[in-house]
């Protein structure tokens, strides 16, 4: 779910990066949707951790959940400070980071990581 949102936002960003534009409102809305999704994930993840009897490393799992919830908003602030191609790149990096962290989260949840 979150991977899909990251994918869509990343695609939007790449298009505008190629067109050499600063990050647009649509991107920030996309990042906002992503932010809501990772916040929901933070809550859902903690609840799921409390209920599961899987062999999940709790501390690591929660720290990843928190990190992934912080990345989009920090990325958005950084990119707002640089209204150029650079800002678009930063937002893209942030979205890519979220995607990367999501795969790690999945590894930890399935206890392979």
């Amino acid at each position: 779910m979150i991977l899909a949102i990251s994918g869509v936002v990343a695609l939007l960003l790449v298009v505008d990066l190629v067109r050499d534009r600063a990050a647009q409102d649509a991107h920030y809305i996309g990042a906002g949707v992503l932010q809501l999704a990772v916040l929901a994930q933070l809550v859902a993840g903690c609840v799921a951790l409390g209920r599961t009897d899987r062999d999940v490393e709790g501390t690591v799992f929660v720290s990843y959940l928190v990190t992934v919830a912080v990345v989009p908003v920090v990325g958005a602030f950084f990119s707002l400070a640089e209204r150029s191609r650079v800002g678009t790149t930063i937002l893209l990096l942030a979205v890519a980071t979220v995607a990367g962290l999501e795969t790690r989260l999945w590894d930890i949840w399935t206890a392979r990581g």
Partner: protein
Amino acid sequence: MAEPTTSSAPDRPLAEGWGRALVFVYGIFAVAATGRSAVQLGDDAGKVPYWLSLLAAVIYLGATTCLLVGGRTGWRVAAAAVSVELVGVLAVGTWSYLDDGLFHDKTVWSHFGQGYGFLPLVLPFAGLAWLRATRPSRRP
């Protein structure tokens, strides 16, 4: 995007333009490496690679801070940190391929940062290129 550049200022801020993107990535790696080394050292403080993770974390933190602080000293320390980082990722990367046993547990730098999309390998080059472009002695 035509925007007024600050290149005529005596010391070009290190954390503007592409520097800001660099600070963002270095910041992420600082957090990632710190978290990883904390967890690993908490598990078992007796393994060399775990201490290398901590070293990587300190270097990323240092580089991030210096880029943000800027100025002549900031530039120098950042250059030193990024150079150590480059040597570190090359040395640990090569070492981990030669002796897989020691680096069974992944660190940020083992296998040239494979677990991080090889970004740790690319990052020091980007950092050095940026520092070269913002060298304090340069008066454009």
